[in-house]
């Protein structure tokens, strides 16, 4: 049952199946020919196991079982395939007809969950390379592909790139099937569609497109499908390069899709009407379309109060603006427009800078470059040496720079605050974008001061306005302005009051959850209520009282008041 319950890819590589197969003419009924072809095709690959044996006790029906060592469950191969086949003794003997024999093997002898017939050599080899076992029956022109996959993988662990405090500690793994299950476990709806494609001539890596039918805008699905069909290279060998599906990435430094390691975030986005792309061998899901504000949201945002989240989102936005603008602003104010500094601050800075060898611009460039080097080193350095990096970077370098009076302490503070602020964004790709954009802004501030900085910021804003992610404006719902701007932007209304999905996604079903029904009218003294219904409630109400008002009628007519109450409570508590 375990393997039988596994997700079965719905659609695998339609293009590849239509492509001309060089071994299309090979007869699978000729076992010797097939073995020769295996030897020719796989050469000296020692991990390809070809097991020859006979069916039952009779030594007249030859079988060949082929699998790749390490990709299959050896116990399943021995116990569920080889043993039943070698020990089977049908009462009426084996039929002469090979098709009937193959049907008996598939339906009565082999206790495996998934099985299919491969009619040509190419199809069979693709299944074999995916980790299935292939059973060839002498004289039968098709191969039985038996699912015995057991690929090496790690168990779901806490997301490394998106740590959190108060939400799920489960992250995606490198195994596509596991990742799909992690999403399915959160969205137990038959409307969740999973379409699997494979791409790459040699790698045959699999991509799964997930969406919720009846929620997502079909135009988005079609757009994504057409982009996937345009592929066909080795683009997906490196998992996160799935992003090249969105072709405009090279034109903008801003990420147009959200990478996430978190199944809860991916599920949440699916429910909002977005698409999720999962790639085999990648622990990251790609969420499209993405707007700029999506990069400042986390799944935790829905586990806290609205006020707390508004504060945190504001902090994230301000921190990112700080990370982007602080070095440029520092240089613009210090080098070009010092008259804008408050006098006492200017005098303090002047006193700190007295006798320093470098101009502020060079200082900032030096310190920011050092920070970048430290950051890259921190990623590449083995964890066991992390402490060394901290000591070298923070203690020796920082103290030496400050005490040797090579760099102003204020410049170090600016660089440190900038580096910290750039890490506040929940999405790593935004942090990279900020780090990248700091340099052109710095150049504009050095050249033209505050004027140049303003000009560069305006150009950047203009560029943001032109961006689209899968056809959705990148700055939505702010530009174009949407009525739902306050629903879940910086400020978020309580989840129980979020009745609709975002307008800019144009979902098929805008209703996310039904608004709670109005509370039952209180008894007695209610303005506008007929006096005869006053003081009568629930089951005690006579049938004619239900006609007195709509609210009363719904409450009174409910066949199961307890169930109805539970439903209402459920909506409120969501």
């Amino acid at each position: 049952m375990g393997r039988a319950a596994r997700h079965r890819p719905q659609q695998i590589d339609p293009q590849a199946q239509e492509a001309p197969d060089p071994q299309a003419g090979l007869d699978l009924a000729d076992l010797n020919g097939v073995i020769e072809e295996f030897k020719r095709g796989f050469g000296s690959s020692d991990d390809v196991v070809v097991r020859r044996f006979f069916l039952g006790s009779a030594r007249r029906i030859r079988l060949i079982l082929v699998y790749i060592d390490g990709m299959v469950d050896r116990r399943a191969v021995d116990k569920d395939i080889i043993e039943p086949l070698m020990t089977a003794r049908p009462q009426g003997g084996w039929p002469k007809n090979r098709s009937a024999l193959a049907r008996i093997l598939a339906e009565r002898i082999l206790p495996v969950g998934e099985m299919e017939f491969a009619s040509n050599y190419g199809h069979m080899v693709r299944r074999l390379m995916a980790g299935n076992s292939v059973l060839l029956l002498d004289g039968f022109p098709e191969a039985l592909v038996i699912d015995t996959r057991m690929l090496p993988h790690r168990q779901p662990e806490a997301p490394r790139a998106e740590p959190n405090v108060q939400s799920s500690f489960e992250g995606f793994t490198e195994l596509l099937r596991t990742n799909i299950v992690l999403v399915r476990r959160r969205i137990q709806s038959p409307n969740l569609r999973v379409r699997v494609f494979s791409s790459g001539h040699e790698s045959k890596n699999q991509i799964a497109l997930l969406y919720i039918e009846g929620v997502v805008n079909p135009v988005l699905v079609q757009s994504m499908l057409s982009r996937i069909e345009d592929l066909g290279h080795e683009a997906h060998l490196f998992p996160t390069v799935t992003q090249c599906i969105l072709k405009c990435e090279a034109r903008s430094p801003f990420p147009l899709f959200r990478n996430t390691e978190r199944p809860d975030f991916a599920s949440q986005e699916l429910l909002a009407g977005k698409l999720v792309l999962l790639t085999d061998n990648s622990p990251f899901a790609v969420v499209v379309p993405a707007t700029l504000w999506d990069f400042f949201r986390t799944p935790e945002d829905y586990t806290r109060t609205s006020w707390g989240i508004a504060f945190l989102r504001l902090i994230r936005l301000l921190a990112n603006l700080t990370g982007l603008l602080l070095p440029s602003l520092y240089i613009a104010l210090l080098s070009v427009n010092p008259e804008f500094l408050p006098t006492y601050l200017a005098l303090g800075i002047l006193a700190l800078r007295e006798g320093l060898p470098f101009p502020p611009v060079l200082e900032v460039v030096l310190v920011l470059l050092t920070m970048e080097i430290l950051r890259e080193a921190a990623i590449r350095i083995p964890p066991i040496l992390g402490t060394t990096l901290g000591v070298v970077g923070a203690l020796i370098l920082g103290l030496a720079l400050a005490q040797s009076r090579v760099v102003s302490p204020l410049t170090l503070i600016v660089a440190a605050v900038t580096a910290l602020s750039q890490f506040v964004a929940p999405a790593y790709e935004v942090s990279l974008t900020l780090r990248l954009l700091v340099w052109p802004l710095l150049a504009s501030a050095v050249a033209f001061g505050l004027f140049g900085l303003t000009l560069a910021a305006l150009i950047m804003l203009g560029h943001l306005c032109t961006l689209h992610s899968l056809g959705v404006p990148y700055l939505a719902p702010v530009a174009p302005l949407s009525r739902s701007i306050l629903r879940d932007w910086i400020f978020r209304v309580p989840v129980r009051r979020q009745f609709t999905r975002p307008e800019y996604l144009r979902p098929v079903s805008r209703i996310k959850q039904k608004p709670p029904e109005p509370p039952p009218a209180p008894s007695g003294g209610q303005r506008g209520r007929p006096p005869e219904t006053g003081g009568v409630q629930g089951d005690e109400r006579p049938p004619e009282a239900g006609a007195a008002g709509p609210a009363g009628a719904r409450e009174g007519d409910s066949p199961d008041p307890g169930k109805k109450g539970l439903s209402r409570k459920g909506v409120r508590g969501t």
Partner: protein
Amino acid sequence: MTPGPRAPGRSLLALLLLALAPLWLSGCWDNVDVRDRAFVLGLGVDLTPEGRVEVTAQMPRPEPGSVSVGTHGSVLALSAAGTDPISALHNLQGRVSRTFLLGHIKAVVLGEPAAREPVVVEHVVDQVLRHPQVDPGAFVMVANGCRASDVMNRGSAEGTASALFAGSALEKGLLGLNVPQSEVWQFLRALQTPGWEPVAIGIRCRPDSLEIADAAVFKRYRMVGWLGPRETRGMLWLMGEGEGSVVEVPSPHGLGLVLINQVTARFRLEPGDPPAARAQVSVSGQLLHKPERLVTITHRDLVALNSLLARRIQLEARLALEKLQGVFGADSIGLGRRFYFTSPYFWRGVNWEREYPRLRVEIVVSAEAGRKGSLR
């Protein structure tokens, strides 16, 4: 109709023009590094016995890692003379290795002889007060009884550099200062507005400190005289200012002190020959100290005190007006400006220089001083 494809050249050209446009502005090629800047905090203008203009610039002393920012010891004042302020400043620049930055000037102080010389004041206005770097919020001051260079070379009682002391005290509107707010923009606006004369803040040199007091009255580009403390405060009442002043109210029961919280002044103008005006000054405040011989204070006592307070304020306003009209002939309150705005036909046919001293001004004061605690 679907729009046709955009010509790629147009957007490229627009981008190119946008990128090249700032080249006409100042940029990094004429930028002076902050290390090579001398932040001028205050500027003093004096007249030498030879008739030349002497400019004294107060700037921070270059001290690595100085922690006593803004103190008198952390600044130095350098002087140089020239034919006018800008040439004096150029001469001074020749003695300093750093380029002057006038953007942090807190006070421009004129020596009294220089302030009484219209040509010098005109040069100061054109070359210093209108300088693009000078902050319009800096204060215009006149040294009372000493040279402007003395002011620049002196610190306040607590040791703050004079320019920063003046700027800080006036920006915060410290209690009891009783001087008009005369920032650069206000001084220039008064010069440009018909029927309004500028005033400057007085600053006195004490043996070991400085004191902000009095007001220097200007008539166009020439200083015509001083208003004493009571007259300055009288002028403030008529301007609708003077919050924070403490007024002494002498009564038969002794001396009471009232802290003024709110002042409003409204004018009703009567164009005619001679023209007249009625000033309605309303003052409210808090009784800080009751007259000594009043054991307890009753509502009737408070009404009597309010009457005395109003009379006192009226007296000070009358003193200021008499001096401004009769002695200086300078409309520092801006009564002419009010006629100019409210009765343009009258203004067109009137010679305000001649009419202003003849202007009859009736001053009506209503005062209301409250008291914390219970009344009997």
